[in-house]
């Protein structure tokens, strides 16, 4: 019951969903949509545990007065305030919940995203060194494509945008396609292993029994 039933459920659902893919009948499509809908409902309870997890981690820090406990308190307050205003006043535009989202969450998240501009520069400086043949190719391709995107590239040579386009369209596409095929095979093989019960580590079984 503890291991066999989950393995059976997993195999049954896996094979059922593979078969479903080949049946275009409306009942089959309805079934698919229903199952997808179920995912959402099952997830909900996991989110409850998720929220409990984050609350627990921070609560432990606060109650044990560990280093940086004050910040954990900030997280706890921010979490409970958001949950409270969301459930108490609703989530329509203009409500406190959405104000928190628009003026606190979104600006910080998009700023976090924009840090990439800095990191892409530092990563390029730090690692784009012609140490080996492969590294040289990487850096030359990167430089040409970068030049191809801004007017300066065109000013250096009118050919650069065309070369950059060619690199993106031909060698880049070939590499991507090779990776995709490999990923397809690797992931399908992984999926089969799970469905057939060869790989059971997700059940908490690690070594090959």
């Amino acid at each position, binding site marked *: 019951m503890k291991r066999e039933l989950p393995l059976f459920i997993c195999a049954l659902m896996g094979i059922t969903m593979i078969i479903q893919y080949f049946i275009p009948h409306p009942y089959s499509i309805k079934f698919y949509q229903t199952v997808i809908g179920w995912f959402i409902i099952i997830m909900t309870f996991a989110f409850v545990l*998720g929220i409990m997890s984050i609350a627990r981690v921070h609560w432990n820090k606060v109650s044990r007065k560990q280093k940086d406990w004050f910040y954990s308190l900030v997280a706890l307050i921010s979490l409970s305030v958001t949950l409270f205003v969301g459930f108490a006043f609703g989530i329509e535009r203009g409500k406190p919940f959405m104000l928190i989202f628009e003026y606190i969450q979104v600006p910080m998240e998009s700023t976090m995203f924009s840090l990439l501009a800095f990191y892409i520069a530092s990563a390029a400086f730090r690692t784009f060194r012609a140490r080996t043949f492969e590294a040289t190719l990487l850096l030359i391709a990167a430089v040409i494509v970068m030049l191809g*995107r801004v007017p300066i590239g065109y000013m250096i040579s009118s050919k650069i945008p065309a070369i950059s386009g060619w690199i993106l369209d031909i060698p880049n596409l070939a590499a991507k396609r090779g990776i995709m*095929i490999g990923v397809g095979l690797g992931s399908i093989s992984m999926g089969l292993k799970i469905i057939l019960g060869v790989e059971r580590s997700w059940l908490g079984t690690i070594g090959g029994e």
Partner: protein
Amino acid sequence: MEMVWITISALLTLAIFSFLYKDNPIYKFAEHLLVGASAGYYFVIYFFNSVKPNLIDEVVKNHHLIPLIPGFLGFLILFRLSRKYGWLSRWSIAFYIGTGMGIYIPVAMQANIIEQLRGTMVETGKVGEPPLFNISSFSLLFSDFNWHNLILAINGPILIIGVLCTLAYFFFSKPHKGALGKFAKVGITFLMVGFGASFGYTVMARVSLLIGRMDFLVNTWFRQLFGL
């Protein structure tokens, strides 16, 4: 009032930027504020957009009983809190994973394998388009030898070689020596050029994001606040 909110946004934006200098109390404060708010946000949104219409309204208002099945499966997850019955949560996880794998396998077979196969036979992957290995473009090249025609003729073959050699790189069960080793080496060449190109291509989009944030700080906030 709006200016107050904008000022809060701007200060929090600066707080996140301060991380670039080094980790500091202001960043720590902003980070924890953000994590708490976003975890709460996601849960609330998830509840109102998914659970309420799909489970609660269905059962309470429409008296549909089928959503109770996933409701039950989901409830089993909560047994994780019990030391003794924790294993019950595996049933729902098994359902989730099994279904996910079953949905994924045929889709991956189609999108990652079959589509890519066709795309490597003809241009743009559409049936009836010119072949990737195009004899007529070669004959054009021989009758009128110039750069443009050369590129036109060899594009297809280069793409084919690139795909095959990249595949060779992913061979696991044979040592990369001899012919396979040479193919794999060419494959690595294509991978590196591809990675470099993708890297270079992304810079622009990332800089745009930063411009957006700076524009907010300079024009939306600073200039308005001081009426410049």
